[in-house]
């Protein structure tokens, strides 16, 4: 198949959201149903892979049917199926992959396997259909922190990525030690709003020409700071710690993104991933990029979190490149991104 599909059903089950979407001509979201498991995982203070897998299996067909009904589409009218095959929690991915494979087989339509990160990147094209390549895309989520030079559909290269924790992971861990709960990103953002940046946490820029990130040192110094103050009997202002941590993390993200955009001479930077919905990050990025004549775009909030619409948007172009799965498609828990 090298024809772009008119009506496509996409599935996403890589972490703690079960999602299905119907996408028309790669751009129109006919439906995008997201069933979140956050409430269950909050009991455990984080995502429990075994429980996520169980919930996906219980919910997935209901979510698929809701997506079809909401779109007003009969499954027999679908031209193509798409599914996230990695990276993510392997047990969670397997539910989506197994169901998508057998459903595509039963309906006699092709199945397009989609890299989860590529989906996050394509969320930008759903929200900004007229954007022009090339772009610098900075992907910031619970599992990833990457700066990608995105030349065109099917053509990209990773300029840098995290060598240890992902940015979202650092948010979650710091939120936990601050007693702010799960998921950590929105909680830190909320606390930081009323906090002051009065603690100097380290910025890890690594080698001068590197676009890589490292956030584990920052996380450790937050933990050390809390530990030391507790021992000395000093008060800890949670909001100030949250603000200072967030500023330290964002400064590196923003500066490296700006340098990449200038080096590659792009006119647009796209933010992607769950952390892209952080208002402070958007603001800092804008403040640095706009004076340089670089436009910042980001997906609308619902398309920043994990969702199937973004998977469908990516699959539309992959299908056009003939990238179709065989019956032996497997879930891949970690895999580098490619075109």
């Amino acid at each position, binding site marked *: 198949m090298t024809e772009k599909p008119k009506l496509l059903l996409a599935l996403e089950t890589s972490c703690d959201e079960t999602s299905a979407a119907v996408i028309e001509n790669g751009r129109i979201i006919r439906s995008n149903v997201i069933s979140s498991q956050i409430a269950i995982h909050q*009991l*455990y203070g984080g995502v*429990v892979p*075994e*429980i996520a*897998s*169980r919930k996906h*299996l*219980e919910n*997935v*067909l*209901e979510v*698929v*049917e809701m997506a079809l009904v909401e779109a007003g589409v009969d*499954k027999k009218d679908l031209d193509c199926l798409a599914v996230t095959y990695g990276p993510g929690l392997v*047990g969670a991915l*397997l*539910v*989506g*992959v*197994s*169901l*998508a*494979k*057998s*459903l*595509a*087989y*039963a*309906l006699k339509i092709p199945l397009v396997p989609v890299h989860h990160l590529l989906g996050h990147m394509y969320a930008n094209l759903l929200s900004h259909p007229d954007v022009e390549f090339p772009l610098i895309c900075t992907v910031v989520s619970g599992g990833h922190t990457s700066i990608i030079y995105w030349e065109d559909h099917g053509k990209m290269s990773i300029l840098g990525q995290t060598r240890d924790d992902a940015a979202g992971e650092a948010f979650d861990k710091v939120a936990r030690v601050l007693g702010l709960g799960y998921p950590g990103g929105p909680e830190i953002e909320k606390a930081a709003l009323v906090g002051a940046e009065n603690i100097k946490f380290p910025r890890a820029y690594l080698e001068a020409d590197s676009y890589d990130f490292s956030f584990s040192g920052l996380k450790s110094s937050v933990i050390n700071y809390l530990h030391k103050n507790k021992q000395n009997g000093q008060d800890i202002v949670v909001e100030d710690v949250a603000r200072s941590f967030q500023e330290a993390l964002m400064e590196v993200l923003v500066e490296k993104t700006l340098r990449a955009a200038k080096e590659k001479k792009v006119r647009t930077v796209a933010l992607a991933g769950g952390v892209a919905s952080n208002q402070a990050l958007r603001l800092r990025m804008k403040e640095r990029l706009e004076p340089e004549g670089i436009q910042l775009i980001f997906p609308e909030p619902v398309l920043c979190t994990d969702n199937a619409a973004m998977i469908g948007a990516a699959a539309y172009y992959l299908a056009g490149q003939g990238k179709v799965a065989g*019956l*032996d*498609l*497997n*879930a891949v828990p970690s895999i580098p991104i490619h075109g």
Partner: protein
Amino acid sequence: MKVLSIESATNVASVALCEEGMVQAERFLNIRKNHSEKLLPLIDGMLADADMDAEEIGLLAVSVGPGSFTGLRIGMATAKGLAYGWDLPLKGVNTLDAMAYALRGDLGTVVPLINARRKEAFGGFFVGGDERVGDYFVLNAQSIAERLQELGLMNPIFMGDGVHAIRAELAECMPEARFASPASVDNRAASVGLLALERYALEGEDDLKGLSPTYIRASQAEQNLKKAGAHE
């Protein structure tokens, strides 16, 4: 009516096509390879060999466990996708029930066992290979012997991959124990399909969307949460 059945609760990946009282086609792998890569090609190959069109199939059946959590989910997600895509009813069958069914007519106590690790097995006691006595269990060899005695069950015959894990222990506790030949008693999709046909005729179909595996054991996180709650 023809039934397409899927069994992936253990290292075995197996698919079958059956009609009332007859196995028409079956494919079976027990090579510890990834079920996710193997299951759909097995189905596709079998349908091609049998020269069978999906339109001729009237029922989907799947083994619901207990067994490997991952294997069960791959099998059930595959079964759900096929049933939904083909607009067919789905029937889930307990893996232990299906195993015991393969020894229907045995005069002793049929005890299918599935490896549950930590020197334990999931299992059940069946009289005549059909009628279950007592609850499904996850136990070690010693406790299985005690449970048999409590229930007054005689002449046990053990089968399934749980036997590999605790055979020596079972033989030690129960010198009278019999062990079925692996040639006849590995968990097979054919047993799942034949039993599903019987039950579908009696009970009708299962809820396609809501059907989920019989895990028997809670997940580690749930066990921990329960423990933490009990200590508070």
